[in-house]
């Protein structure tokens, strides 16, 4: 009698262990089960959702060409185009340069530019190693002397095989990247005399 009882309880425990053993979190194609549906799915559109109303299947719409949102006329030519009133590229970045701006530029550069230009700016990034058209190195005399506004314009509109980054990088961040590229150029073309006196002995 006791033997059978032990077997019975053992079976119970085994069933419980097997039933709860390893079914949680198994990869599956099946969408999540909503035990209590509540109002989890409401008849409204959230950003980037599909919609049946428009032929392209998207619920979101493009703005009508030529429309300008309030406050977004972007008529500050220096800030949004990197050009002065005569249409020439600005020699100097039109925003106030701080160390935070340079650090922001470094972060943005490493996210958006380094895949091709590499973190050093030598144009040997990982995408180039995978077959992308190599960009020129930043460390040439031509690009060291080029106007700040020109670099801003290239980020904004792209050049040759480089696409425009106007959607991914906001104008203030583009200027931060320009400033950081200038810092990169100095750092890769620096001599001993550019170092503070007290640090020079360390690298000799």
């Amino acid at each position, binding site marked *: 009698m006791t033997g059978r009882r032990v077997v019975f309880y053992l079976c119970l425990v085994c069933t419980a262990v097997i*039933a709860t053993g390893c079914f949680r979190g198994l990869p599956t*194609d099946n969408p999540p089960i909503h035990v209590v549906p509540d109002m989890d*799915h409401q008849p409204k559109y959230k*950003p*980037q959702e*599909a919609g049946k109303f428009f032929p392209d299947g998207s619920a979101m719409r493009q703005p009508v060409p030529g429309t300008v949102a309030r406050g977004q006329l972007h008529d500050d030519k220096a800030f949004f185009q990197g050009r002065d009133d005569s249409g020439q590229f600005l020699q100097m970045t039109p925003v106030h340069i701080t160390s935070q701006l340079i650090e922001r530029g470094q972060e943005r550069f490493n996210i958006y530019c380094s895949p091709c230009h590499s973190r050093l700016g030598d144009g040997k990034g990982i995408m180039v190693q995978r077959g992308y058209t190599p960009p020129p190195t930043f460390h040439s005399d031509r690009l060291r002397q080029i106007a700040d506004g020109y670099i801003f314009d290239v980020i904004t509109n792209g050049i040759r095989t480089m696409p425009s980054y106007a*959607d991914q990088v906001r104008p203030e961040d583009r200027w931060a990247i320009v400033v950081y590229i200038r810092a990169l150029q100095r750092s890769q073309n620096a001599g001993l005399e550019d170092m503070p006196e007290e640090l020079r002995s360390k690298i000799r």
Partner: protein
Amino acid sequence: MAQIFPVWTNKIPVYIAAGTIILVLAIVGFFWYYGSPWYTDVGYRPAQPVRYSHKLHAGDLGIDCRYCHYDVEVSAVANIPPTQICMNCHKTIGTDNERLLPVRESWSSGVPIQWVRVHQLPDFAYFDHSAHLRAGVGCVSCHGNVANMEIVELKKPLSMGWCLDCHRNPDTQLRPRNEITNMNWTPPADQVQFARKVRSENNIAPPEDCSGCHR
């Protein structure tokens, strides 16, 4: 006169009591295990219209999450990149790759690729990515190590109880702002002190009231 009920029937109440207890435990156990979002939601790994691999792009190539999901720091939604972002590179790379056919079709027709949504909150929860990144919660806290996934899979239950666990004690999930997209960041030994400091400096007080997430 013979007894109507044989002797063994004396035990019927005991059997009923024991059976009831076992049954109740089994039902509670069943719903505790199978009704939990760890079972109903976690592991969702739908096939996508393009066999895009996060492991290749974010893992092996080391492209930052924000290269494609570029609005995540300023917007409530971590935007699914438009086809244009794919074409930044794939105009040049993999132009004859079959896997990219739907991308090229979308690019030429202007019809967006219909990616299948994996991380879906109920429509009455108003989650904001930018607020969480500003506080210093890394991508990996809610999405798992995406840079290791061939196909994106739901790794966390995204349930209210799970959200509140962290809102009540965010100390383990906060990290420096420049590490938010780092999938392999490990908390330092003084993580709790660090988190306390960041929380007081930046006034990070995760809401626990209803209107924090529901409107």
